[in-house]
């Protein structure tokens, strides 16, 4: 039956112009495949189909737009196509190619068993639009022999879907992956299975739902709760949920005692101690964690207190709720370091080494002293790039003697201009003689990196205007008003009419290049933002939105 595509009313005759609609294509391909795991990038399968991008109309004089037909390849293990894996083809394309790796992943998702030949049924579904009947191609059948995929490893990808090198482990290849991950607060990530299936939080009414997982096209990435640190993470692809057990601290008892320190960059817990004797020592390691799951969401108050403990079974470290004895060897009496290495989910390790090797905790703020001729530790920069220890904030300058940075509250440690260079370099343990000259009078975005030991200003000019964009997923720019008597504080009214899925940007001096972004915990970060509704955002309410560019915080108050 002809689908009416084009109703064209001539004034005098009322002609109706119709089109045959999407045409079914003829599908062919390169034939049976034994997928070679040794050439993952090699070409394994080529599919070709006839071109159906050109529609025809009942009036030959009328030519219709090209490429409006939507062609979707369907792959199935059965002739009835009851369960299919679909791949949308590019508009106007007439072929698709699969490397060994991509085909193996595809047929794994289709459900073909490894290391044996099985039929794969392929057809093309062609439609003009959702309200028109699809046309199907011939069914192209081939025999495919996939190679067996290792399903014991789940690969942790970052928010950009780049492999982080970290993994979770499924000992029984049963779709349940677990392991310890050290993360920053609200860390965004994905889990990629060996068969190419990518898991994240399920999409839900335009937003992601924490701890309920999905691998369909509309899913979001996973994200952790607010507290940074060590999480025992379980992704259960069978029950389609995941959980995160935050471990804020671990206590060691027995022959070695003390509180361990966690370094999320190395994924290790450490404890420096003094050993009276060398030789075998028996210890226990335990603590109390906070369990986040599909019921609690990321609500810290709802998170469930849960005992955590390590033990040893058959020489291997175990993890659970009840501690058992762990035997370690102390190489020599004196200063030692106990290290609990949780990086490899297949082989956690606990050992004692000589000497002290405990990581310092990453400082979240860096104090600024002297910027306004006061020296009272009430102004600071906020960490925004942990990898390079970069701190930033708006700082109000009007200084007579320059300024310096200080790490410890009222520690009076000086981080000053490096006197050995004219570049903007920093030096630890400097003196007042080497204070950093102020950039001028006014509110400047000030940045310091203790990783690179340098400092700079986010903009050459002081802040003269502040605006926001992004609320309600609306990217119009709205000016904010300076709050009298509070330097660096600006406010504006905003009504929540919809979700704010991508966060909010605070633009400085009207430029999209200079911005603070909202994080879900109520903080602002220089040049970054976190996707999702800002803290306190509820549709239907009207707020006073206030930002403090000096303290790097924001609030929504009704």
């Amino acid at each position, binding site marked *: 039956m002809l689908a009416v*595509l*084009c*109703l*064209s*009313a*001539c*004034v*005098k*005759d009322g*002609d109706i*112009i119709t089109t045959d609609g999407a045409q079914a294509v003829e599908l062919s*391909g*390169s034939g049976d495949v034994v997928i070679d795991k040794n*050439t993952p*990038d*090699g*070409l*394994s399968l*080529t599919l*070709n189909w006839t*071109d159906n991008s*050109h529609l025809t109309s009942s*009036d*030959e*004089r*009328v*030519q*219709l*737009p*090209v490429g*409006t037909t939507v062609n979707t390849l369907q792959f199935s293990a059965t002739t009835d196509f009851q369960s299919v894996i679909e791949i949308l083809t590019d508009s106007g394309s*007439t*072929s698709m*190619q699969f*490397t060994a790796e991509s085909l193996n992943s595809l047929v794994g998702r289709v459900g073909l068993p490894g290391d044996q030949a099985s039929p794969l049924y392929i057809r093309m579904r062609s439609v*003009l*639009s959702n*309200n028109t009947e699809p046309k199907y191609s011939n069914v192209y059948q081939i025999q495919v022999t996939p190679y067996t995929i290792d399903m014991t490893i789940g690969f942790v990808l970052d928010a950009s879907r780049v492999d982080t090198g970290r993994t979770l482990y499924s000992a029984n290849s049963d779709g349940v992956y677990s392991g310890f991950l050290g993360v920053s607060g609200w860390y965004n990530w994905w889990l990629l299975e060996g068969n190419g299936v990518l898991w994240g939080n399920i999409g839900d009414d335009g937003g992601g739902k924490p701890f309920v997982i999905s691998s369909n096209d509309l899913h979001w990435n996973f994200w952790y709760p607010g507290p940074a640190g060590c999480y025992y993470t379980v992704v259960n692809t069978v029950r389609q949920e995941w959980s995160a057990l935050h471990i804020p601290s671990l206590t060691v008892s027995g022959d070695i005692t003390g509180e361990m320190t966690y370094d999320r960059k190395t994924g290790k817990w450490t404890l420096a101690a003094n050993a009276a004797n060398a030789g075998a020592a028996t210890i226990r390691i335990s603590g109390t964690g906070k369990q986040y799951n599909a019921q609690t969401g990321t609500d810290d108050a709802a998170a469930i207190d849960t005992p955590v403990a390590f033990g040893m079974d058959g020489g291997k470290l175990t993890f659970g709720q009840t501690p058992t004895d762990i035997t370690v060897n102390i190489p020599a009496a004196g200063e030692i370091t106990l290290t609990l290495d949780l990086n490899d989910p297949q082989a956690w390790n606990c050992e004692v080494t000589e000497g002290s090797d405990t990581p310092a905790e990453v400082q979240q703020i860096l104090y600024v002293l002297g910027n306004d001729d006061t020296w009272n530790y009430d102004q600071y920069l906020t960490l925004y790039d942990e990898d390079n220890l970069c701190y930033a904030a708006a700082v109000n300058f009007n200084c007579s003697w320059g300024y310096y940075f200080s790490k410890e509250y009222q520690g009076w440690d000086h981080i000053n201009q490096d006197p050995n260079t004219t570049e903007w370099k920093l030096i630890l343990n400097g003196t007042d003689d080497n204070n950093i000259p102020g950039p001028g009078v006014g509110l400047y975005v000030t940045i310091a990196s203790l990783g690179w030991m340098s400092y700079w200003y986010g903009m050459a000019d002081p802040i003269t205007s502040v605006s926001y964009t992004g609320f309600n997923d609306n990217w119009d720019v709205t000016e904010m008003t300076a709050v009298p008597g509070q330097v660096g504080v600006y406010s504006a009214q905003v009504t929540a009419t919809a979700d704010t899925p991508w966060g909010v940007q605070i633009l400085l001096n009207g430029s999209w290049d200079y911005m603070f972004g909202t994080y879900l915990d109520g903080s602002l970060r220089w040049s970054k933002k976190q996707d999702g509704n800002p803290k306190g955002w509820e549709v239907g309410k009207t707020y006073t939105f206030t930002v403090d560019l000096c303290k790097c915080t924001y609030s929504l108050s009704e």
Partner: protein
Amino acid sequence: MFERMMGILLPFILASCVQVSCTQESPVTNPRQQEIIPAEPGTFAKGADVSWLTQMESEGLVFNSKSGVPTECMKLLKEDCNVDAIRLRVWVNPSAGWNNVHDVLVKARRAASLGLRLMIDFHFSDTWADPGHQQTPAAWADYDLEHLNNAVSSHVTEVLGLLKDFNITPEWVQIGNETRGGMLYPLGSIENGNNYAELTNAGYDAVKAVFPDAKVIVHIDSGNNLGLFTYVFDYLKNKGGKYDIIGMSLYPETGKSADYVNKCVSNISSLYTKYGKPVMVCEIGMDYDQAEECRDCIASLIAKGRETGHLEGVFYWEPQAPAGYNEGYGKGCFVNGTPTVALDAFKD
């Protein structure tokens, strides 16, 4: 006489609704559906061998027009560089799949849909065939000459037949690649009696059986070295070898391109005088960072070659290859996925 009418399409194409003039005189054409006008057969070919293209795409390479817009490579070559022909190599049963008959079909269809002319380059090997390598395909390794002739014929028929099934007609077909010493070693060595000529003829006849109008090319490297050509084409002349066009490769060294061109052009004239066959430069390339010299070299070759009346075209070999591709190839003419000025030589 009808009045003007407005066509209202379904919502999904509202934005492109067709305005139809209700007159009987002329069709109404949406600009986006202009028919591709194929390059005219028999005219001077400005070509590119892009056999790596699908493999590169699978590896994530993206190509950009000179204005920075990501663009399909053949389309880019056509629109930005005046390329009007595509050359594609065929391997018999390559271990990694790329350049097998099905991969060739994908690229050939794409070229045809753009109205580009096509040269098919049979290597008669599972891998690279060049002056130093003419390895017989593994599946043919034990064949005697009769079987090998049949295998050549069947392979050519299979590949060209598949193209024909998809209404693609190559204008040129190359039998063997850089066969200065023959092909399908050891049996097809030029030092092995009539074998190389027989194998060439097996390919030639198979081509003509499928596409009678296709021109068959025998291709030798080093277009600046006349001796290599007279060695092979004297042999073919003496042994009754059949071909229509003499194919050349030419890879000038930096700073010496003018000399290469002059010798090549001289050879084109000499070869025509001696064998009565025109020449196609099937491959040309220079170091990617010598784009201006490369442009001038190709432009000079085209100008001087056309003056002889016997040069039928020039194909740049894998212009889209980024520097260092495939373990070190450096004679492409794209930088950061965008053409350099080298192919400006193709502009009239």
